[in-house]
């Protein structure tokens, strides 16, 4: 078998094992919380008998191991249980919001990734000169701003000073694609501002590191222009470190944007999770936790794989 296929298979298997381990950790974490689901449901009205009855009906009397495997079995079939607070099907509730989350993340990522890498290349090209300092300064200033400050600032700028966008980003089923794009424009702008600096700086650093190599001198002595040297000879050797930072930021765009969701009243997973944490709706917390973990693990495996594939020593062994 080609060693590359073996490596890919290994990484994916490792990711699945990791995901399983995370599901155990989440389950145990919830187990360790004081009180249980029955108490959470009954709250003040709990009596010893009502608690016992509810525990019986929810299956809480069974051993933790049994409950874990029952939950896992259902989850694998797409059944994440029902929310305690409103008896809604969790999988269904998540499904719709996950779509919204991914829509926002993909829009922000599609702008932020090429933009930050491009800015990183330009900063590396003009290392130490004014374009580098300008790019570094502006992106650093943007990342230093807390995201809600950035959000309110953009709302002020783009809905009041230059009124071209709306401050609330609600989207509904049945909206057209461009309507949706218009609706999420503000949160996308804010998220791009937040993730730009990290990826830009890593690109710049990785390129400058590669620029020390002897083969860069070879390329310069061939008569290539500085940008050609960076694009053709430096970037292909800097892919792995850049990708690893890109996926960390993409994962953040999926799982970490609750503040922005709240500011723009955008109905997505982050808000859903925070609402249900506040209500101690443990099955929901567990389900969303697993989904977030899967996103993180999946994206990191992707980064690993791209890093491996970008390395010709692994692609073409001796």
């Amino acid at each position, binding site marked *: 078998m080609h060693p590359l296929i073996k490596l890919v298979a290994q990484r994916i298997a490792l990711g699945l094992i990791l995901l399983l381990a995370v599901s155990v950790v989440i389950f145990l974490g919830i187990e360790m919380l004081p009180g249980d689901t029955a108490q959470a449901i009954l709250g003040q009205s709990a009596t010893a008998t009502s608690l016992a009855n509810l525990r019986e009906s929810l299956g809480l009397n069974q051993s933790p191991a049994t409950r874990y495997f029952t939950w896992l079995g259902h989850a694998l079939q797409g059944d994440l249980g029902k929310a305690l607070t409103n008896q809604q099907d969790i999988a269904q509730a998540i499904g719709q919001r996950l779509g919204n989350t991914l829509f926002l993340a993909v829009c922000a990522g599609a702008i932020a990734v090429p933009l930050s890498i491009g800015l990183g290349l330009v900063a590396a090209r003009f290392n130490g000169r004014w374009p580098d300092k300008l790019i570094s300064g502006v992106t650093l200033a943007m990342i230093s701003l807390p995201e809600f400050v950035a959000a309110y600032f953009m709302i002020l700028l783009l809905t009041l000073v230059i009124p071209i966008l709306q401050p609330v980003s609600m989207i509904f089923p049945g909206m057209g694609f461009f309507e949706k794009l218009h609706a999420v424009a503000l949160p996308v702008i804010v998220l791009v501002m937040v993730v730009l600096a990290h990826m830009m700086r890593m690109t710049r650093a990785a390129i400058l590191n590669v620029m020390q*190599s002897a083969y860069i001198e070879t390329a310069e002595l061939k*008569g290539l222009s500085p940008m050609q040297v960076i694009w*053709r*000879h430096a970037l*292909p*050797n800097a892919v792995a470190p850049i990708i690893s930072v890109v996926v960390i930021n993409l994962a953040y765009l999926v799982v970490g944007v609750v503040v922005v969701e709240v500011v723009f009243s955008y109905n997505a997973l982050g808000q859903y999770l925070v609402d249900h944490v506040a209500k101690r709706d443990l099955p929901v917390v567990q389900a969303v936790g697993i989904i977030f973990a899967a996103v993180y693990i999946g994206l990191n495996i992707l980064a690993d794989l791209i890093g491996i594939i970008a390395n010709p020593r692994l692609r073409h062994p001796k």
Partner: protein
Amino acid sequence: MADLLTIKNLRIEATAYPPGEAPRHLVLVDGVSVSVQKGRVLGLIGESGAGKSTIGLAALSYGRGGVRLTGGQVLLNGRDIRAEGAAGLRALRGREVTYVAQSAAAAFNPAKRLMAQVIETSLLHKLMTKEQAEVRAIELFAKLGLPNPETFGRRYPHQVSGGQLQRAMTAMALCPKPDLVIFDEPTTALDVTTQIDVLAAIKEAIRDTGVAAIYITHDLAVVAQVADDILVLRHGKAVEYGATDQIISTPVQDYTQALVSVRRIDHAEKSDAAPILRVQGITARYRGTDFDVLQSITVDVAAGQTLAIVGESGSGKSTLARVITGLLPARSGQITFDGRTLSPDLANRSKDDLRQVQMIYQMADTAMNPRQTVGTIIGRPLEFYFGLKGEAKRARVQELLDQIEMGAGFENRYPAELSGGQKQRVCIARALAAKPKLILCDEVTSALDPLVADGILKLLLNLQAQEGVAYVFITHDLATVKAIADKIAVMYRGKVVRYGQKSDVLAPPFDDYTDLLLSSVPEMKTGWLESVLKTRKMESAGN
């Protein structure tokens, strides 16, 4: 004939920024004038720091790091390229002048196929179509003796050997049909048996394409094979400039005479004595591999004498040293030291066994902690093995510094403040501090300039006479072997192919490999390359 390249009164400067000190202004090249005619080869020769590469790169108006061309003229095809702007320089680089770097392994982009890199210049300057460039590249691959020239270019740099990469780099430089090629130590990093083939290939390619070349090297014997004229440089100044024959046979300047005669140390062999170290039937492999890199090695080292282990890279020389020290435990076989059997594994040896066997490495730079002073570095084994402290330790450090001929004042210096030769001397002092009976020297002179290397060899011989220490001297350089060895073991692909007293090993009849090895050492006379290629018995392999 009009000159292709004329350098007049060239001055090159740089600013160094030593940490914690004020920036220092350096003059790298001062007042050098030289010219190259069409179809001729100029050799630039000198020690490291002589300004050879700096002058070579000046022909491309390129300064490494902060290096600046500050005075004089560089006339290429009649115009001063110092006056060219960035776009003008890009137009001449790769089209009129190309460059072959010392380490082709580092100078090729690991992420791109060789063909794409070889034809890149021709396409960039729109000299040929892609098809024409590929045809030319394949022709050049064939001319340079690369295997399967049709498909060679599809490989990535890591898929071919160092010697092949060096030829591919030459093909890359010749592909755009430049007027001038700068060869910057193109064979220095290669084994002597590989060097001879690459040298022959380069020489033939230069002759057939009629290109002019500047050939930079520190090895006068190598440059004598390819150059028409030679410029000898020292400390950035021209020492002597003349036709190759004149420089080799009747050098005028003292420095040139020293360079020409440098390989003439001879060390009378001592007769065999009782062994201090016996290596018997050692077989070893690296962890996680299933290939024996050493196969039943049996050699003895006589007390107070030198065993030279010679062979090309990959032959197992350094691995044998690692097995002797216990860093790599042998799979089978026995190591006896001073009558006792040593444990194969370093961890199970007594402190005294450890003290008795010391090591000196090729790269003195990386073998010392850059944040410790010379005094601390040499004092450490004194403390560790003998418990010396304070004044006693200081006195002993000074004694050792005197032994390595580096007087007072050095103990407070840091490694970065020493020259290459001085660093290696400090490493020798550190090894001596343990009062060992055996020192393993792994290519200790390979990274040094010939005259400095000579000084180190003389020092080692003196120390052997004073202290009675035995050496295992690992090297790929036969001149060094002749200078220091009493016994020689020739290694080839993990086996000892020839072993005995120096006079026996170096006397005919030879086995094929030893013949190849001996005949590949460049000799300081013109025409040596052609004569040796006709007469040798075995083709060099693995290049």
